[in-house]
C-alpha cells in the first residue's frame, strides 16, 4: 500500500499547473451546470431546489485529492469512512476544510465566501502555492478565487459555459468531420419548428434536449407528431408571455444503441491532449447508473474514439479550454460509433474514480462503478455499513467492493415509508472489481443481498 499521490493525480497537476506537486484545493461543485444553464432558455421545467445528494457527492474529492491537497466540502466526512479510506485502502488523504457557515440552498463556494475563518485558511494555502480546482467554474468559484487569493487551476466561467453547451458539441463535431448523431441546433423557436418538421419526415422518435441540461433532466422524447405539436404549443405560449422566442435546444434522432460510452480527455495548458480512459456507461431512462470497464469495443471503434479525443481536445484548446472533459458517445445497434453525443468539459464521476481504478483495477480484470439506491430507516455511520458489508470490503478471489462515497447514504434517512415520493433518496457509491464478468455479477448480487439486511433497497435498485 502507498500513501503517495497516484500517477493519475500527478498527471492532472502537471497538465493544469505545469508541476506534479502543486497543492490543489478541490471544490466538487456538481451543481455548477445549473449556474451555466441560468443564462439560457431551455425546456420549461418545474422549479427544483438543489438536491442534497448532489451536495453530498462533493466528498468524492477525497478519492482524487492526495496528501498535501485539501477538499472544500459543505459537510465533514464520516470519521469511520476516513479511517476506511486511510487505513484499509491505504489512500493518502487530503486535508478537509468545511466552511463555518453553511446553508442547504446555496453552493459550497457561496458558503465559503460567507465564512471568514475558512477563507483565511484557504488564503494561507494560496500563499503556499495552492490552486483552486473546481469541477467547473461559475461566477461563484471566480469570486472565491479572488476573495481567497487562490488562483484557479482551470479556465474562467465564460470559457466553461461556452464549451459545455450541447449546441457547441454538435457544431464542432460537424466541423471536425466526426460522424454526428443526426440532428439540429435550435436557437429560436422558428428553428425548433423547422427541425421538428424535418424530423417528422424521418423514421423513429426524436429527443429534444436542453443545451445545458444536466444528467437525466432537460430532455423530452417525442415519438408522435402530436407530442411534437404539444411541445411547440407550450413553448409558443411561453414566448408570447415573455416576448422572447430564443431557445437553446438540440433536436436529435433517437438512435437504437448497443452501448453508451464515456471517455475522458485531459487538455493541458499547452494544448496537448491525452485520452485517459474509455468506459461503457450504464444508463436507465437517460439517467446515469454507473460504468463498466473495460468497454466492449473492437479495434476500429477504439481507433475512432482516439481520433475523436485528439480532434475534440485540440478544438477545445483552440477555444481557450484546458482541463478535463468527459465525452459521451454511443455504439449504435449496427455497431457504428457516434463518437460525440455531448462534451462535458468539466470533471465527471469518472474523473474522481481515476485514482481508485489505478490502485485497484488490476490489468485483465473487470470493474463496475455503480451506486446502490438505498433508504435507511435511520441515519447510519460508516462503521454500521462496514459491519454489514464485512468481507466484501476486502480483497478475495471473487473480487472486492470499494466504497467511493458514503456521504450520500443518509439522504432521506428516516423517510422510509412516509410516502413523500422524493425522487432522490440515499445512494451508496461503489467500485466493484473482479477477475471476470461472472464473478463481477456475483459480487454485485452479494452486495445487494448484504444491503438488504439493514437498508431497504428501493424497488428500482
Amino acid at each position, binding site marked *: 500500500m502507498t500513501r503517495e499521490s497516484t500517477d493519475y493525480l500527478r498527471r492532472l497537476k502537471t497538465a493544469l499547473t505545469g508541476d506534479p506537486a502543486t497543492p490543489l484545493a478541490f471544490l466538487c461543485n456538481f451543481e455548477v451546470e445549473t449556474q451555466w444553464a441560468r443564462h439560457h432558455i431551455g425546456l420549461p421545467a418545474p422549479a427544483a431546489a438543489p438536491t442534497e445528494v448532489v451536495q453530498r457527492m462533493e466528498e468524492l474529492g477525497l478519492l482524487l485529492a492526495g496528501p498535501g491537497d485539501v477538499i472544500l466540502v459543505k459537510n465533514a466526512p464520516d470519521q469511520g469512512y476516513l479511517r476506511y479510506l486511510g487505513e484499509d485502502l491505504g489512500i493518502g488523504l487530503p486535508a478537509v476544510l468545511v466552511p463555518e457557515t453553511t446553508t442547504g440552498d446555496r453552493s459550497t463556494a457561496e458558503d465559503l465566501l460567507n465564512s471568514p475563518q475558512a477563507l483565511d485558511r484557504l488564503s494561507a494555502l494560496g500563499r503556499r502555492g495552492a490552486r483552486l480546482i473546481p469541477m467547473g467554474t461559475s461566477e461563484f468559484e471566480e469570486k472565491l478565487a479572488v476573495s481567497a487569493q487562490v488562483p484557479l487551476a482551470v479556465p474562467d466561467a465564460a470559457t466553461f459555459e461556452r464549451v459545455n453547451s450541447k449546441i457547441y458539441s454538435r457544431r464542432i463535431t460537424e466541423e471536425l468531420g466526426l460522424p454526428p448523431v443526426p440532428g439540429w441546433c435550435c436557437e429560436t423557436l422558428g428553428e425548433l419548428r423547422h427541425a421538428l418538421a424535418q424530423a417528422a419526415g424521418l423514421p423513429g422518435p426524436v429527443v429534444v434536449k436542453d443545451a445545458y441540461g444536466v444528467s437525466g433532466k432537460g430532455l423530452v*422524447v417525442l415519438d408522435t407528431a402530436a407530442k411534437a405539436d404539444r411541445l411547440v404549443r407550450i413553448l409558443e405560449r411561453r414566448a408570447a408571455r415573455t416576448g422572447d422566442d430564443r431557445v437553446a435546444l438540440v433536436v436529435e434522432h433517437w438512435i437504437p444503441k448497443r452501448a453508451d460510452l464515456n471517455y475522458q480527455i485531459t487538455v493541458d495548458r499547452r494544448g496537448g491532449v491525452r485520452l485517459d480512459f474509455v468506459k461503457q456507461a450504464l444508463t436507465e*431512462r437517460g439517467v446515469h447508473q454507473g460504468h463498466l470497464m473495460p468497454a466492449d469495443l473492437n479495434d476500429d471503434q477504439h481507433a475512432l474514439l482516439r481520433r475523436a479525443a485528439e480532434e475534440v481536445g485540440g478544438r477545445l484548446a483552440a477555444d481557450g479550454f484546458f482541463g478535463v472533459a468527459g465525452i459521451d458517445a454511443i455504439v449504435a445497434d449496427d455497431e457504428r460509433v457516434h463518437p460525440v453525443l455531448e462534451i462535458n468539459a468539466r470533471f465527471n464521476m469518472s474523473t474522481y474514480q481515476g485514482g481508485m481504478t489505478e490502485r485497484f483495477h488490476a490489468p485483465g480484470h473487470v470493474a463496475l462503478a455503480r451506486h446502490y439506491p438505498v433508504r435507511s430507516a435511520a441515519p447510519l455511520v460508516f462503521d454500521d455499513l462496514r459491519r454489514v458489508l464485512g468481507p466484501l470490503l476486502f480483497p478475495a478471489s471473487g473480487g472486492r467492493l470499494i466504497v467511493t462515497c458514503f456521504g450520500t447514504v443518509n439522504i432521506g434517512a428516516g423517510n422510509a415509508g412516509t410516502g413523500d415520493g422524493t425522487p432522490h433518496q440515499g445512494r451508496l457509491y461503489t467500485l466493484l472489481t473482479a477477475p471476470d464478468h461472472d464473478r463481477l455479477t456475483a459480487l454485485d448480487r452479494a452486495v445487494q443481498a448484504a444491503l438488504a439486511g439493514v437498508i431497504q433497497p428501493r424497488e428500482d435498485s
Partner: protein
Amino acid sequence: MNRSEIVAAVVRAVGEVLQRDVPDVTEDTRLFDDLQLDSTSILELLMAVEDTMVVEIDPEGLDMDSFRTIGTLVDYLQGLVDLVSTGNAG
C-alpha cells in the same frame, strides 16, 4: 371538472407517458417511487395532462412538491380548474 375527473385525467396521462396501464392507483400513489416516473418524464406528463384536461399549464409555475403523488398533482390542477371557472363566472 370535479376532483375524481381530474384524478382520472392524471391517471390516463400517466398511462400514456409510461405506455402501460396503471391499475390500482389512488391519490396516495407516489409518482416516482410507486409508478417509476422519472425526472425526464415530467414535461411529457404535463403535456399529456394538458390534452386530457384541455387546460393550459405553465411548467415553470410548478415546483417538484406537486409531483410527490397523484393527489398533489391533482391539487395543483384543481387549483387551475377553479381559477378558470372563477374567471369564466366573472
